[in-house]
Every structure is written in C-alpha cells, then in structure tokens.
C-alpha cells in the first residue's frame, strides 16, 4: 500500500489558521471589488461625510425647532447602504464561489472554514461603518448634541449603543447575505431578504404602547428610535443598550448558521451547542431590552 504520513495535529492547526486568514483576505478583496458593494460604500461615504454639515443631521438639535432635526437617524445610513449593500454583495460572492461546484468541493479547505472566511470578510462593511460612527463622534465632540423635545433624553451609553447598532447592522446584513446564500440557493433570495428586512424594520415603527410592539421594535434588525408625524413625535419603547448585544447575538447566530451548512461530525455538534448558547444569550438580550427599557411615549403631540 502507498503510505503517506499524516501531518502532526499542532502543525496542521497552525496551517489551518493561516489558510483561514489567507482566504478571508481573498474574500475581503473580492467584496471590496464587488460593484454592488463599491456603489453602496461610495454612497455611504458621500452621504455620511456630508450629513453632519447638513441641516437635516445637524447634531445640535434644538428644542425650539422640534420635528426638523433628526441627527439620530444617522445609524440608518450604515444599516441601509452597508448592511443591505453588504447583504447583496456577500450573497453574490458566496453564490458565485459555489458556481465552481465540484472544484471547490474537492479542495482540502472544508466548507465550514470557507464559510468562516466569508464571514470574516464581512468585517469590511462593519469597519467602514465604524469609521463613519467615529467620524460622527468626532463631530459631536466639536459640536456636542443637546437634548431635544423630539428625541427625548439619552444617556451617553444609549448614544453609543445607538451608533453601535449602525455598525452591527452593517456587519449583520453582510453575514445574512452569506447565510442566505448557503441555505437558500434560489436566485432572488437575497433581494427577497432585503425586502423582508425593510418591511420588518418599518413594522417596528408602529406608535402604540404595547409589549408586543415593543418586542417587535427591539427585535427588528434595524429600527429607528423615534417616528415623526406632522403633529407628533413617537419615541419607541425598549432599551437601546440591550438591543446592541441582541444584534451581536444575531450576528453570531448568522455565522453559526452559515458554517453549519456543510459541517459534519464533531464540528456540527459543536456548532449546535454554540447555537443554543448564542441563541439563549440573544433571546435573553431581546427580552431584557423589551422589559427593562422605557415604554413608548410621545415626546410631543399637538394633535
């Protein structure tokens, strides 16, 4: 018989890590070159850079001019451009790798590790969103925000959590793109997912005092803090601070779910255990965010 020595485990593990980072770099470059993501990122940068200087998003939201300044909408920019753009681009990249078919299935890097490399590449949109958030924070340091009638009062922790939501939405959207490509291989799956996400987010803006609506608001992957009508401003219920770890939990679940697609044996069992753990953490954060946060309220109502 032909006998070939198997590499000792420690050496193989080091090599595996190098392979993972090499592939992650490769996938990150693919994302940076993907036309959909390039357009989304350029739009994000353009709008994010100009937003703090526009009247619309002036950080100095004045109580006397209620209903006109909405600078706390800023996290919607990374969520919309980088989250949805990342979702579509990563979905295309993941599906596109699958087009190589049996060539990819016969390489030594197993499916879960290839998926993990794709997930690591999703840090690119998150990093871009983080830069945007840092930019806004710098702007706020120069021109600190004051409390407004429109938005209610926020602690520093809540403001940080609010900005973190934009970053996590950029990360989570891209991860969702990978997850969808791994499990649902029909061509419009990513587009349908985008529409569902938007509908879910819009549904979370319903102005009413109701625990279920609060739960939906906290659960929605991205949602605004306040909903403004012509004569009123409705402040959503639920805790902003708890929502951030909840979103982080969703990101973790997306990674686990995507990697579980081709996992087998011990790895699959580990992933199932991790899914229970992260799932439990995520649900706990969701419930805490629903129960521990403030109820929804009208910050002003002239009806």
């Amino acid at each position, binding site marked *: 018989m032909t006998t*070939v020595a198997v590499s000792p485990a420690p050496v193989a593990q080091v090599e595996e890590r190098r*392979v993972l980072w090499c592939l992650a770099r490769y996938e990150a470059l693919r994302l940076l070159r993907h036309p959909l993501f390039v357009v989304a990122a350029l739009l994000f940068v353009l709008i994010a850079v100009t937003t703090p200087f526009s009247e619309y998003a002036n950080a100095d939201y004045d109580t006397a001019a209620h209903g006109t300044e909405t600078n706390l909408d800023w996290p919607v920019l990374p969520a919309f451009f980088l989250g949805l753009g990342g979702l579509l681009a990563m979905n295309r*990249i993941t599906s*596109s790798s699958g087009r190589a078919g049996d060539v990819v299935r016969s390489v030594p890097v197993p499916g879960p590790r290839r998926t993990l490399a794709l997930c690591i590449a999703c840090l690119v949109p998150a990093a871009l969103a983080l830069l945007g958030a840092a930019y806004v924070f710098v702007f706020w340091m120069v021109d600190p925000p004051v409390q407004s009638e429109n938005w209610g009062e926020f602690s520093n922790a809540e403001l940080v959590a609010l900005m973190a939501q934009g970053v996590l939405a950029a990360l989570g959207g891209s991860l969702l793109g990978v997850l969808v490509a791994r499990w649902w291989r029909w061509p419009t799956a990513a587009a349908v997912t985008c529409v569902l996400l938007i509908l879910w987010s819009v549904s979370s803006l319903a102005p009413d005092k109701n625990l279920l609506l609060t739960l939906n608001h906290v659960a929605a992957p991205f949602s605004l803090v306040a909903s403004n009508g012509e004569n009123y401003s409705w402040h959503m219920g639920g805790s902003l601070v708890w929502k951030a770890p909840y979103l982080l939990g969703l990101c973790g679940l997306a990674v686990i779910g995507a990697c579980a697609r081709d996992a087998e044996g011990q790895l699959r069992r580990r992933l199932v255990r991790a899914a229970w753990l992260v799932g439990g953490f995520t649900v706990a954060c969701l419930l805490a965010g629903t129960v521990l946060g403030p109820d929804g309220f009208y910050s002003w109502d002239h009806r």
Partner: protein
Amino acid sequence: MTTPSIQLVGVGRRYGPTTVLDGLDLDLTPGVTGLLGPNGAGKTTLLRILSTVLAPSSGHCRILGFDPADPDQRTEIRRRLGYLPQESGYPRGFTAFRYVDYVAALKEWTERDSRHAEVRRVLALVGLDDLAAKRMRTLSGGQRRRAALAQALLGSPDLLVLDEPTTGLDPEQRASLRGVLSGAGHRSTVLLATHQTEDVAALCERVIVLDAGRILYDGAVTALVGTATGKVWHADEEQAAALSSWRTGTGRYRHVALDPPEDVELAEPTLEDAYLLLRAQAVRDRAGVTA
C-alpha cells in the same frame, strides 16, 4: 509489484431507486488509466467518489492510503488530489489567473509569491499564460476548459482525476495536453474519463470500460484492441451485416461486426472499433440472459 494508490471494494452508488454504480472492485496504480463508457455508465459518479466529492452508498474505498469516510483523512486525500470535473463553473468576474489563484488559495497555498509562481507554471503548462489576464467569461469554451485543467494540475498532485479534459480543445491543444498528462502519469495516478477513444489509445496503457455501473473491461489497451482483430473490414458498399459502418474519406465503407462475413478485406482495428464491439457483445449477452 507496484502498490495500488486506489483500492475500491464493492463500491456502489444509488440515487433513490436507481443504481449508478454496482459493486465495483478496482485497483489503480500510478500511470495513466483511461475510463470509457456510454453516457450514464457511471463514469462521472465514479470520478466524483474518487475525488471525495461524493460518498459511496456501499463498499469501501482507500485512496492514496487514506479512508475518505474519515473527515481528517479525506482532507489528506484532497491535499494530494487534482480534480477536473465534467462541468466546472467559475466565480463571476474572475480572470483566468485569479480563478486558478483562488483555487490555489483553497488548496492551502498561503504564501502569495510561491502561489503566484505555481499559478503561472500551470497556466503555462496548459498554454494559457498569455491569456491569464482575460476574464473567464470572455474566454472560449476550450480556453476555459484549459483554465479548469490548470487548477487540477496545481502542486503536481499524486492523484489526477480528469473528467473529459479534451472537450472543446482543438487538435493542437489536445496533442499538447497529451504531453502534459503523459508527464504527470510518470509520477502520479491519472484517471482519465473520456469519450475520445483516440486520447485513451494515445495516452493509456490500461483502460477500464464501464457499462450500466459495472466494469465491462479492465486491462491493457492493446489487448482490448486485439479483441477486434478480424472484425473490422473495408468494402465498396454498405453491408447490412455490420454492427456499425460508415463511408470513409476514400469513398470506401469501413465495417465493424461481431460476426463478420468471410472473404472480406480486413482492416487494422482501432480502440474505437474494439469499444464498439465490446458494447455490442455486452448488449447481446444481456439479451441472451433475458431470453
């Protein structure tokens, strides 16, 4: 005696109620082995099992000394494997270079300079070095096929599994490819599935003929060709007794039959003739058994 690099014992594969491979026993040693068979004979399924993409429904495999059923050992096989599938897609927007480079990264070539050098080497081997910067979708079918072959040649693998590698190649490219594969056959086990009998005749010492998931013939190419001696002849007119006949470029007819008539002008048989006769004999045997 050369030790086998591939051993299959009673390997079967079913898709629902359909049996595609039926208890194959097979040993493969280094060198180039041809795999012939009609459409649906199970060639691609066999190659997918050997390339660890597909698990057999029954039986045992040992590939390069490893058991593909074990995930860790399967990885070891894949580290020593080059596989050209029948239909090889490619990621969108990739150039030929990036496509092969991407597969090289998936084959654990982490060091960029050595990986790029290897990619350039295999692209040159298949004659694509001057087209490396062209996008895959702008290449012709034959050029894309050669790019797919280039990825299989990465790292000079111990086992090379090729499913119809010459599809879409022009005669010059096919001749050039034969040079590459015969070179690989000196150090590796090469299994070549094809419908081009002339490629098998030109490259392989050994040929396996699959039919309906079973091995119909396994032996030397020359021995198979020898079975057709006396069963191929030329005549001025088409003859009904022939199993297969066609008008050649000289205007005369070439006939192949299991039971040729007497007093005919015999011709030198080719592997294609022998293959046709082998298949016809199998059909006749099956009909006899059924009757």
